């Protein structure tokens, strides 16, 4: 052996200190597990107490509503294709809102991420400011921003788009800055050595490294935003959510329309998922040449 061999006394020391380390780790692990279980139990109890009815009684009735929707939809199954065609324009509006919001949010998110990553930030002292800004963007529910904007701008797709874009900028900014932390700073230093500006360093040194990850997260966000934009339809910004709210209200006999909308939403999510995995594969493994 090249190393000076360690005497038996040293090994005993190493053993003891490692056992001590293990014991401490186990203690932490055990405490964390106990905390988790306690919180689950306490949380369940609180939730159960606050419910209008008991969880156990209500649990059996969870499937009543879907069963009713399904039975009515199967009765009028012949009209389903008609309904799907009828709701297609509304779906496209929803998709448009989601796509525009994702695009704007992703661009804002990348800038925020670069500004708030240690080692890359343009103004290192302002990192906490940009971080808190993203926190605020994520903290305010989309529906609240949308309602305020509807009050100021009037109903329509634009308030929904802005609301979702703000949330997306906050959420993607955080994810992007985590991606940035794993990027190598060596190319950035290389570009700095030739006298490149901050924007040039980021665009040419960082973005090529993190691009595939950015796209992958943005596509995931697009899926989430489709749902968000459908939900915002409930508060009157149009799109498929508005139609869904009208169709799914109890006792109007329009459950067949609701079923058609659910089918449309499901197909859209599947299509986006397939498309995004295809794109991600191309980006990470390179196109087949």
């Amino acid at each position, binding site marked *: *052996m*090249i*190393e000076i*061999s*360690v005497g038996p006394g*040293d*090994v005993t020391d*190493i*053993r003891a*200190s*490692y*056992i001590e*380390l*293990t014991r401490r*780790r*186990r203690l932490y*692990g055990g405490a964390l*597990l106990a905390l988790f279980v306690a919180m689950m139990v306490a949380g369940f109890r609180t939730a159960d107490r606050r419910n209008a009815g008991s969880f156990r009684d209500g649990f059996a009735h969870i499937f009543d509503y879907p069963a009713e929707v399904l039975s009515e939809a199967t009765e009028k199954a012949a009209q389903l294709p008609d309904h799907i065609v009828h709701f297609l324009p509304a779906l496209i509006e929803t998709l448009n809102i989601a796509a525009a919001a994702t695009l704007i949010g992703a661009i804002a998110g990348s800038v925020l991420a670069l500004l708030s990553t240690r080692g890359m930030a343009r103004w290192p002292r302002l990192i906490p400011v940009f971080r808190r800004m993203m926190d605020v963007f994520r903290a305010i529910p989309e529906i609240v921003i949308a309602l305020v904007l509807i009050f100021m701008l009037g109903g329509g797709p634009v308030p929904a788009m802005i609301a979702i874009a703000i949330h997306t900028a906050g959420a993607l900014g955080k994810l992007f800055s985590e991606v940035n932390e794993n990027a190598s700073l060596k190319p950035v230093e290389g570009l700095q050595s030739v006298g490149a500006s901050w924007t040039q360093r980021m665009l040419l040194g960082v973005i090529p490294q993190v691009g595939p990850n950015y796209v992958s997260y943005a596509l995931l966000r697009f899926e989430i935003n489709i749902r968000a934009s459908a939900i915002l339809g409930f508060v009157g910004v149009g799109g498929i959510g508005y139609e869904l709210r009208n169709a799914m209200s109890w006792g109007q006999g329009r459950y067949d329309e609701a079923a058609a909308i659910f089918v449309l939403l499901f197909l859209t999510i599947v299509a986006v998922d397939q498309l995004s995995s295809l794109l991600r594969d191309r980006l990470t493994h390179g196109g087949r040449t």
Partner: protein
Amino acid sequence: MLRIDKLTKRFGANTAVDAATLEIDKPAMVGIIGRSGAGKSTLLRMINRLADATEGTITFEGRDITHLRGAAMREWQSDCAMIFQQFNLVPRMDVVSNVLHGTLNRRSTLATMFNLYPTQDIHLAIDILDRLGIAEHAPKRAEALSGGQQQRVAIARALMQDPKIILADEPIASLDPMNAQTVMEALRRIHEEDGRTVIANLHTLDTARRYCDRVVGMRDGRIVFDGLPEQLTTGVAREIYGAGADFSEAATSTQIETLNISAREAALREAEATI
């Protein structure tokens, strides 16, 4: 002990290993040489069952292990340790945990999830590390160690398995000459002191000659040489590597002395040229 009969592996139209037949009847240190792409790695991966054989059989102590599945296969893998060129440790876990991974087949998933290894296993792991001269790095993360140290952690993990056979796939190919020597000496010592069979893929002739009792040469998936290190003449080596008359052994060497000699020779030749 270990018997490989007409073992073949095809990847689509390519044949990586072509009807390889090999028998090891007593514990030995066997070196497999050949240029890259000769099928050395695939052969070892099939023995460890990381890869499935297309045709042929592998028998160990009379038991056919070619078609083992599930728990039986994993039990065989725990008896047949593997050492990799790139160490294949978990970089973010500490050295002792990486060594304790050698016992995973004997422990329940739940216990290993919460890091509940028996104290005597932890002691044994540290003793093995001490034997390989890296006990003082026990609590460090594996990624904080140098290449040679990481490879010795990988050997410690293999020893922790208490295996019947150790396979080493290019164990020194990504190490500098100094560390390569330490690692090869460790493998040799394990063979001599514990009497375990070691099969190592090597890409340098002099390493095979120096440390192995028996050398197997592979070329294009076939076993073309099987004999004692002394029988490995330059002519035979040329045959194995498929090289012409310009083939020089120093070119495949990572050993310090040889490099020094060739450097001295080069300097001498250069001096002669100037005169």
